[in-house]
C-alpha cells in the first residue's frame, strides 16, 4: 500500500525547555513509555499510513538518534527504492531554523515522487493515521492542513500556534503565543502540504530572509492560501518540559490510553533489543506499573515505569518513578517521584525523593 504522501520529521524540537533529557540526545531520541523513543511514534505512524519516504532532519546531538533508527528497518522504512533518510548539517549547508532546513534538503524534496508531504515534530506520543488527515486535505482542496487539538497551552511550550478555523475548517485567524488560558485549538505540530507549494513558500521566505516558519510561512500567508485545521480527537502526549514528560509517561497507566496508543492493528515499532522476559523474584511486590523486558525485580514497585534491563534489589522501594534502561537500584534503596536516566546505579540504602509536580532528575550514567 503506497500513498501519495512523504514525511518530514524534525528531530530537534524545543530542547532548551527540557535540557536534562536532551543534554546528550535529540528530542526525538528521548525515551518514552519504558521501551520507546519519541521518534518511534512519528516513524510508526508514517509507516502505518503507508508512507515510504521519510526525511528525518537532525541539527545537533544526533548520535543517539542515528544509533536508534539505524537503516529504518524496524519501521519497515528500508526498501530498495525508498525508506528513511537522515539529514544533518554539513560543510557550508548548516541550518538553524525550519525554513533553512527544508531549503537545505530541497534536492531531496524535489525528487520525491509523492506529491504531498506530512511535516511533523517529534515531541509527541500518539497513534495518528495520517491518511485520514490527507483525505481531509484533499476533500477541502486545501493548500495546507494543520492538525490541532482543543487543549490548554502547556506552560512551557515556546511559540504555541493557535488556529481559529470556521465551521468548514478554514483557518482565517492564526495566532502565535496568544494570552489564552482556557482550552483553545492548539496546533500539535503536524501538517500536510503539497510538495511543490512547500518548496515555493520556502524559496519565498529564504529570498525575503523571513525565516520564521509559523510567522512567515503560515501567518503571513493566511489570506493568500487555503489553510485548514484538522481536529485531532485522539489521545496525544506532547512533551515540552520535565513535568509534562513525567505526567505524560504516567498517563500510560490508564488502560484506555494504552489500548489507543498501542493499537495492535497499528503497532508502534522500535529498535529491538534481545532481552529476556522480565523476572520477578520471591520477594517482589509490583502494582500499577509498566515494566519492559529484561528486568529483574526483587523489590517493591508502585505506579512506576520500569524500562528494559532494569534491576531492582531486595527491600528496594520504587514509587511514582520513571526508571530508564539498564539502571540498577540496589537493595534497600528508596525512590519516590524520581526520573532516572539510563545506566544509573543507586547504591544500597539511598533514599531520593522528588515532588509529583517537580520530579527529581538523575543524570545518565550517574552513581548515587
Amino acid at each position, binding site marked *: 500500500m503506497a500513498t501519495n504522501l512523504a514525511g518530514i520529521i524534525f528531530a530537534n524540537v524545543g530542547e532548551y525547555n527540557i535540557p536534562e533529557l536532551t543534554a546528550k540526545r535529540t528530542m526525538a531520541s528521548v525515551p518514552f513509555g*519504558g521501551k520507546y523513543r519519541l521518534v518511534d511514534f512519528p516513524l510508526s505512524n508514517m509507516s502505518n499510513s503507508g508512507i515510504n519516504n521519510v526525511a528525518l532532519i537532525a541539527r545537533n546531538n544526533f548520535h543517539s538518534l542515528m544509533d536508534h533508527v539505524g537503516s529504518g528497518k524496524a519501521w519497515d522504512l528500508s526498501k530498495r527504492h525508498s525508506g528513511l533518510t537522515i539529514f544533518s548539517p554539513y560543510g557550508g549547508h548548516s541550518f538553524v531554523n525550519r525554513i533553512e532546513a527544508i531549503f537545505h534538503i530541497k534536492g531531496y524534496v524535489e525528487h520525491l515522487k509523492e506529491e504531498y508531504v506530512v511535516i511533523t515534530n517529534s515531541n509527541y506520543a500518539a497513534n495518528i493515521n495520517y491518511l485520514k488527515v490527507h483525505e481531509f486535505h484533499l476533500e477541502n482542496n486545501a493548500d495546507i492542513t494543520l492538525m490541532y487539538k482543543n487543549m490548554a497551552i502547556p506552560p512551557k511550550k515556546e511559540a504555541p500556534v493557535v488556529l481559529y478555523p470556521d465551521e468548514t475548517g478554514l483557518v482565517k485567524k492564526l495566532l502565535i503565543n496568544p494570552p489564552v488560558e482556557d482550552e483553545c485549538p492548539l496546533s500539535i505540530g503536524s501538517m500536510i502540504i503539497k510538495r511543490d507549494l512547500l518548496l515555493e513558500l520556502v524559496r519565498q521566505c529564504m529570498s525575503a530572509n523571513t525565516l520564521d516558519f509559523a510567522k512567515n510561512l503560515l501567518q503571513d500567508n493566511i489570506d493568500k492560501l487555503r489553510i485548514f485545521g484538522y481536529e485531532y480527537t485522539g489521545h496525544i502526549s506532547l512533551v515540552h518540559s520535565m513535568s509534562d514528560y513525567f505526567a505524560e509517561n504516567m498517563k500510560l*497507566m490508564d488502560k484506555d490510553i494504552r489500548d489507543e496508543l498501542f493499537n495492535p492493528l497499528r503497532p508502534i515499532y522500535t529498535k529491538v533489543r534481545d532481552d*529476556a*522476559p522480565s523476572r*520477578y523474584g520471591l520477594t517482589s511486590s*509490583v*502494582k500499577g506499573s509498566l515494566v519492559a*523486558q529484561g528486568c529483574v525485580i526483587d523489590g517493591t514497585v508502585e505506579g512506576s515505569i520500569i*524500562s528494559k534491563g532494569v534491576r531492582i534489589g531486595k527491600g528496594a522501594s520504587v514509587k511514582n518513578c520513571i526508571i530508564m534502561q539498564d539502571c540498577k537500584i540496589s537493595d534497600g534503596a528508596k525512590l519516590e517521584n524520581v526520573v532516572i536516566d539510563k545506566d544509573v546505579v543507586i547504591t544500597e540504602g539511598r533514599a531520593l525523593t522528588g515532588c509529583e509536580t517537580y520530579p527529581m532528575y538523575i543524570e545518565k550514567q550517574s552513581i548515587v
Partner: protein
Amino acid sequence: MYPKQEVVAMLLAGGQGSRLGVLTKKLAKPAVPFGGKYRIIDFPLSNCINSGIEAVGVLTQYQPLLLNEYIGNGQPWDLDSMDAGVTCLSPYQAVEGAEWYSGTANAIYQNIDYIERYNPEYVVILSGDHIYKMDYSKMIKFHKKRGAACTIAVIDVSLEEASRFGILNTYEDGEIYEFDEKPAHPKSTKASMGIYVFSWDKLRKYLIDDENNENSDHDFGKNVLPLMLSSGEKMFAYQFEGYWKDVGTIDSLWDANMDILNPSIPLDLKDVYSRNRMLPPHHLGENAEIQNSLVADGCEVDGKLEFSILFSGVKVAKDAEVNSSIIMPGAVIEEGAKVLYSIVSENAHIGKGAVVGGIPEDYPDRDQWGVAVIGDGLNIADGAKIAPKAMIDKDVEV
C-alpha cells in the same frame, strides 16, 4: 559459487513431537513456544551464530508453515549474511522421484548438494528439540585435535536415568568403543545429547553406504553411528558441562520452563535471540500479586501469579490465579479463574471462574495428577473444570 564454510550445521527440525499432543497439532516441535518469548529452535540457532557457524540448514517436514515463516530470512539470529545464512530444507521432487525424509540420516543424504556447495570440512548435526546453550566451536576444536571421524556430545546423567538414553561407553581418553541404546544395565552415565560433529568426507561416504543398504532405517543413532564404529572409525565422546534438557514430553517441557525460574539452575537466557513481537511493556494492575514469575511484553496482569511464565500479550484478569503454569502468547485468563500446574496454548480463553489443573498435594494418588494442557485457541467456558493431566483438544462447555 559459494565461498567455503569450514563448518555447516544441519538442524533436524522435521519431527512431529507426537508426545507433546495438542501442542504440536498445528506446528512442528521446534516451533513450540518456550521460556516466555522464545521458540525451542531459538536455542540451537542462537548457539550456531554464537559459535561462529554461519551456514545452517534447517530440515523441515512436519507442519512446516509456522516454522518456515518464523525462521524467515534468519535476520533475528544474524543468519542472513550474503554468503551463507539459514536455509529451510524441505523434502523435494527430483528426476529420480520424490520421497519424504525417511530418517535422520536420509534427510541429510537428500541434502548433500546443499552441504557440498559450501565445501565444508566439518558438518554439525543438531536437533531442534533441546534446550541448552553450547559453544560448538569448542567441540569442533576437540574433534580436530583428536583427528576424529565423529564426535558425539555427551552429558552425565544419573545411573537411574541412564536407561532412558543412548549411552556411550568410552575408554579413558573419550574414544567410544560401544553404543548402548537405552540399556537395562548401563555401564556408563554418558548420555548422547544428539549433537554430532562429523568430518564431512567421512560422513558423506557413510551416508551413501547407508542409503544403499535396503535394511537400514536411515537413522543416525540406529544405523550410521554403529556402522562407522564397526568400520573402525575414530569416534569420540565430548563431555558437555551445563544445562541441557530434551523437551520432548509435556512433563519435560513444563520442567524446563520451570527451571528458568529456579535461580540455582544455570540457564541464562542472555544471547538467546528470537523474533520479537512489537508489543508495549507489560502492565501490572492495582490488584496484581506477582512472585517468582517471568512476564513478557504486552501482558496485562491484574490477578495473582506464582511460579509461572507468561508469554507475550497474555491477560490475567482480577482475582484470577495462575500457579506453576505456562501461559502461551495471547491467552486470556478471565476473572476468578484458576490455572494450576498447566500449559495453556496460544490464544486459548479460560472463562470466568473456570479451574484448570490441580495442585499435586491434593492428589494422594500421584497417577491421577499431571500437567493439564489446553490446546491452541480453545475456549474453556465460564465455571468449567479441567482435571489435572487432561489434554484438551476441543472447546469445553460447562
